[in-house]
């Protein structure tokens, strides 16, 4: 047997993530004692209609989330207990909602920091309805071999160590959540373990007192002794002493009292007003609690450390008198399946990786680019072009190469609103589309006719240089196999109206003491093509391509330089439109050539 939480307990958890975590712990316990999960529903309005997935063994159980307690109990009429994990400011409302539901008999509130008045109102309301309100600030309730409510008991290995998979003879009531596992552990080491352990909550006025639970334990034949672990202040211990001393009780009572240190603390640590008179009779002091309990016949060990031997003595007495029999330990216990991570850590499984990476690793305290920590790169003066070099070509480029890349990026960051990429971004921005989608709209314009010629230009110039082609051979090869030369030709610029960006870039690169075979070849090609038609000049794409090939970047990365630099401009255009609160664009009729048939009659449907 057990009290409050037993094999028939069915639970609704009120609250979000903390409640889900508790459900996971509860599922671990259910798995240990080989019973189905006792959590039937969650109530959490923001997630109503969804499900929370709770691991059970190696499987997952989907538990529905409802908006109200009424909905939960209507769909799961066996629910009889609620665990409240709602924030302190809404906890009272949630607790009241649960208490007022006819299905629910026990409400245990885990929330900490609930105002005293709210807790008192909840306690009073529960008493009026003949229900139990446990908490607030309860760590939970656990009945060995039967039911766990909340996280009390700790991790799975602690549940096993504390023998919580089978019933013992000791009831536990504790105000301190932090000590609950300690007491359960002591009961399992010095005696045969627990029946039920209750975290009553550490607040000054918890919803239920020791006496209500002592009555329940007294009526539970399996419980032979009860251990009470108190906290400073309050008068719950005196009330328990009064109850215990009032008549002959079946259960033995063991109690540890805390707060003796208060006697020797400096006087200044107590506040001195007439109200302190209330304590002068000694009520609420550790000394008074301890004396009252001893007088009532309870066993009160002098320190917490002496609790174990006291429990041991009590257990041996119970054994001797035949009230309890030595427990039979089960032959085997379920083992909680390990997660893949845990099993890997223990070298028990090998997993074939899904993807492979060779450029970056952020598993440490900061990302490493091709092995170099980002912060160290920064602190040693490296810049964005070096990061590009590491991530695109796995090499630390020189200062001179970095300067070339920086210039390429700056020259191609934006070319005004009329080019297709910028125009598409502006159009999307005006339609109210978000930043990333609008930028993506511009980005997908990058192709053979806009910015996307860099890779191809680089590829063909390199092909020509590698194969030592003459310009004429190259042009003939292109004409026969591929068509116009990528990187050559401009819509608005020409020999008479040269492109300053190209001139600038070529001038700078040529001023450096480096070999530029591709660029030289591209310029020779330009000489020939521009002579045929004056706008067949080497354009920005072609220049970038030739230079980047010359400094060693792989051809496949070349369009990336345009995508990266132009993204700066595209973001700028989106922000610009946003700032102006631009309206939706609709194309003017006169910008369209309506080549569709004139209006005509729709024939009858045949």
């Amino acid at each position: 047997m057990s009290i409050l939480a037993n094999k028939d307990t069915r639970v609704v958890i009120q609250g979000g993530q903390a409640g889900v975590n508790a459900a996971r712990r509860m599922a671990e316990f259910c798995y240990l004692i080989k019973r189905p999960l006792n959590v039937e529903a969650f109530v959490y309005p923001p997630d109503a209609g969804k499900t929370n997935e709770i691991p059970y063994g190696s499987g997952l159980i989907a538990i529905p989330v409802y908006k109200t307690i009424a909905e939960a109990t209507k769909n799961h009429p066996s629910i009889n207990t609620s665990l409240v994990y709602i924030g302190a400011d809404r906890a009272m409302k949630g607790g009241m909602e649960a208490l007022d539901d006819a299905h629910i008999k026990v409400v245990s509130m885990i929330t900490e920091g609930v105002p005293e008045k709210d807790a008192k109102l909840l306690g009073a309301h529960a008493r009026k309805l003949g229900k139990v309100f446990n908490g607030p600030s309860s760590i939970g309730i656990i009945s060995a071999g039967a039911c766990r409510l909340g996280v009390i008991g700790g991790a799975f290995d602690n549940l096993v160590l504390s023998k919580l998979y089978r019933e013992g003879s000791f009831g536990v009531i504790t105000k301190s959540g932090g000590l609950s596992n300690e007491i359960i552990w002591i009961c399992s080491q010095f005696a045969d373990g627990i029946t039920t352990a209750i975290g009553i909550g550490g607040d000054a006025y918890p919803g239920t007192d020791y006496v209500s639970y002592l009555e329940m334990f007294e009526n539970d034949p399996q419980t032979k002794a009860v251990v009470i672990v108190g906290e400073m202040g309050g008068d719950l211990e005196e009330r328990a002493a009064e109850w215990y001393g009032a008549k002959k009780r079946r259960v033995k009572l063991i109690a540890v009292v805390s707060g003796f240190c208060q006697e020797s603390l400096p006087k200044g640590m107590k506040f001195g007003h007439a109200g302190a008179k209330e304590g002068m009779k000694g009520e609420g002091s550790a000394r008074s609690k301890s004396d009252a309990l001893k007088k009532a016949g309870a066993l009160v060990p002098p320190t917490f450390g002496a609790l174990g031997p006291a429990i041991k003595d009590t257990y041996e007495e119970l054994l001797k008198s035949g009230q309890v029999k030595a427990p039979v330990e089960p032959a085997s216990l379920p083992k909680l399946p390990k997660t893949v991570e845990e099993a890997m850590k223990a070298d028990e499984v090998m997993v074939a990786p899904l993807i492979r990476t060779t450029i970056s690793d952020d598993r440490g305290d900061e990302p490493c680019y091709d092995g170099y920590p980002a912060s160290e790169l920064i602190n040693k003066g490296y810049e964005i072009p070096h990061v590009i070099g590491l991530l695109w070509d796995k090499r630390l480029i020189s200062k001179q190469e970095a300067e070339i890349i920086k210039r390429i990026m700056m020259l191609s960051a934006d070319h005004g609103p009329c080019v297709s990429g910028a125009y598409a971004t502006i159009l999307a921005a005006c339609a109210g589309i978000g930043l990333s989608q609008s930028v993506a709209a511009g980005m997908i314009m990058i192709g053979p006719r806009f910015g996307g010629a860099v890779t191809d230009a680089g590829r063909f110039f390199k092909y020509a240089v590698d194969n030592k082609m003459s310009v004429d051979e190259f042009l003939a090869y292109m004409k026969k196999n591929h068509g116009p030369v990528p990187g050559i030709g401009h819509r608005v610029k020409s020999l008479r109206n040269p492109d300053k960006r190209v001139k600038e870039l070529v001038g700078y690169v040529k001023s450096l003491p480096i070999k530029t075979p591709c660029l030289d070849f591209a310029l020779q090609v330009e000489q020939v093509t521009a002579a045929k038609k004056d706008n067949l000049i080497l354009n920005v794409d072609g220049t970038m391509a030739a230079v980047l090939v010359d400094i060693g970047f792989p051809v496949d990365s070349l369009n990336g330089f345009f995508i990266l630099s132009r993204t700066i401009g595209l973001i700028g255009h989106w922000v610009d439109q946003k700032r102006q609160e631009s309206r939706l664009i609709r194309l003017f009729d006169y910008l369209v050539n309506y080549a569709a048939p004139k209006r005509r009659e729709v024939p009858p449907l045949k």
Partner: protein
Amino acid sequence: MAKVLEGPGMGLMKKWGINVPNYVVVTSVDELTKLGQANEWLKKSKLVAKAHEALGSRFKLGLVKVDLDFKTAEAATKEMIGRQVGSITVTQVIVSEMIPHKEEYYCAVKSTREGSEILVANCGGIEVESNWERVKRLCLEVGQAPSAESLEKLSKEAGFAGPLAKKMADFAGKMFACFDNEDAQYLEVNPVVVRESDGELVALDAVTLLDGDAKFRHPDWNFAFAAEFGRAYSKNEMEVMAVDSKIKGSVKFIEIPGGDTAMLPAGGGASVYYSDAVVARGGKLANYAEYSGDPPDWAVEVLTEKVCSLPGIKNIIVGGAIANFTDVKKTFGGIINGFRKAKADGKMNNVKIWVRRGGPREKEGLDAMRALKDEGFDINVFDRNTPLTDIVDKALQVK
């Protein structure tokens, strides 16, 4: 619980219709001088000036001056501000109107398990302490408000008669309204006096303890809470409080001067049992501390630094029960960092460390602590098989 100083306490009482003397809280003489130009009563009335700090026995320390006029009030303020009393510097002075009176009474409302209790006595000041049996009570269940009749009955029981009985009943009713609406845990006025000018009851003092947990529904609580014991918080205590307010979980720290056993235990319940064990073994506590609810390791590190900085300590007790979900490895990581910093600052010479703990990742955590031995720490590490407070016994036996 959260203690509130006299000024804001009086402010709350005034809000619920209780007569309080005119008062101002100032941080400098200039401020008082300026207020004097704007407030007629400061120039006309007899005044009282008190240091507005969480200090006991202010009278004895000369931090309460009565029967002043504006000039002498300015002088008293000047004298008090900046005065050093122990670890506290007086930064605020409350200057209030002196209320000439003959009779002194007592009224308080306190929180009880069932609800609250209204206390009334027809004596006041220090007299009430020596005549505690004259205090009469009215018990109220939570959610229940006192009726006018029950209040009058209480007032009469306490020995009030005639129109004064009604006035006292009314006063107690307002005290209850303030208590209930302001989420108070304790309200006390001692003395309640009869103002000679009009015969009305006036609160001459206010002891106000509010429920800090209810702050979310009181946006007008724009005042700071004061330490509940008879001194202000120290710099280190305030720093730990600032960390505590920022994190999930909690870290707590109170200094006790003159002790030699420093506490660094986990859990609100266990920490008191550890303190009890120190006292039971005749040790002298140097502090009270506690961390719980799986706080971040940096917060535990801050707490550890404060604990290691306590003067004259011989032992540090890093105790704890078997944690539910506090990650032992992670929180110990914070403690270890704190220890290393303290050692580097030369603070750990002749300090013995005693560790006992269980819970998630207990083995890793305890192993990390054990490894500190190799760094020259005098550290003794025990696991869940050693009873909770036995490390205290071991620590205090070692000479």
